[in-house]
């Protein structure tokens, strides 16, 4: 049983594709929970929270030692003040619980921070996606994310070199959650579009292309 459960499910250090496959066997809607049929809910805390807390406590401990130590000609207290301030800011800006709801009955997603509605939008604005990063030898590493308009990026599996396995997992997650799935390339035949944006009217389209030409 993993140490990171409930709202801390995405804090796992070992976020490989094998771990994700195990989690998907336990809950096929991972990282979401099924609240009602066709309504998926996820509550989480951002992982920047523990980084901020770590920075804050390290700066605090180091500053205590610094003020007891003998002083040279230079005063380094500014670094600790910066560290404490940035740590506090990271904690304060990420301490509230986030809740993401995908509602297929109403065909929209809702994003709450501390119980306040932050963003509500149609389902074609939220997606599961592979992201590729290239290392200095030209090898690609793939991450699996859930993201959307005015949402915070959720990383399900990070920096795996096995494309087939992570691709299969991404497609499975997108199928279970019934969301759009995008490949790591912008233009690709492997995209799976389940929710289309409404067609643009002809006049508007002309306006848009005209605007782009200017």
């Amino acid at each position, binding site marked *: 049983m993993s140490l990171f459960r409930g709202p801390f499910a995405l804090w796992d250090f070992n976020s490989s594709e094998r771990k994700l496959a195990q989690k998907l066997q336990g809950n096929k809607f991972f990282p979401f929970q099924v609240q009602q049929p066709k309504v998926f809910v996820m509550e989480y805390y951002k992982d920047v929270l523990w980084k901020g807390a770590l920075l804050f406590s390290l700066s605090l401990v180091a500053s205590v030692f610094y003020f007891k130590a003998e002083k040279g000609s230079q005063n380094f207290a*500014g670094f600790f003040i910066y560290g404490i301030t940035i740590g506090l*800011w990271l904690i304060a800006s990420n301490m509230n619980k986030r809740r993401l709801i995908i509602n297929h009955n109403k065909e929209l997603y809702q994003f709450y*921070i501390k119980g*306040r509605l932050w963003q509500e939008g149609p389902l074609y604005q939220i997606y599961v996606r592979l992201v590729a990063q290239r290392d200095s030898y030209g090898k690609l590493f793939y991450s699996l994310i859930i993201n959307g308009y005015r949402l915070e990026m959720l990383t399900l599996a990070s920096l795996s070199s096995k494309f087939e396995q992570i691709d299969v997992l991404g497609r499975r997650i997108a199928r279970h959650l019934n969301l759009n799935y995008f490949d790591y390339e912008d233009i690709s035949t492997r995209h799976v579009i389940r929710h289309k944006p409404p067609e643009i009217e002809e006049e508007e389209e002309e306006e848009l292309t005209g605007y782009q030409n200017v």
Partner: protein
Amino acid sequence: MSWKDPFVTVTFPSKVVLTIASILLLIIHTGVIIGDLYHFLGSQRVDLMSFHFTITLLFSQVASFYWALLATIYTLQAEDSVLMCFALTSLALNFAVFIVRFVMEFFTIAYREERYE
């Protein structure tokens, strides 16, 4: 919808957070420089100048300039003229403050405390 809602997360939109950080640091550095100039030219109390914080100030100014530069590069890609103006202002002011500090350090180098260790 209450007026408090946008302040639940104590943060700025990710597009301007680097510019805001560089401008906050810029205000601190300008304050330090004004204090230095006052003690150097006005009150003549050079022992109150920021000689003990030179290394911290150098790191801080370099970080501030770097953030302003990053923000400028990002906003140049985004093609938003207001954000670009904001970021370029921050970059230019940071550069100006850095030059002022550089020149002032040369003018005041004779007033630094001497240490023989």
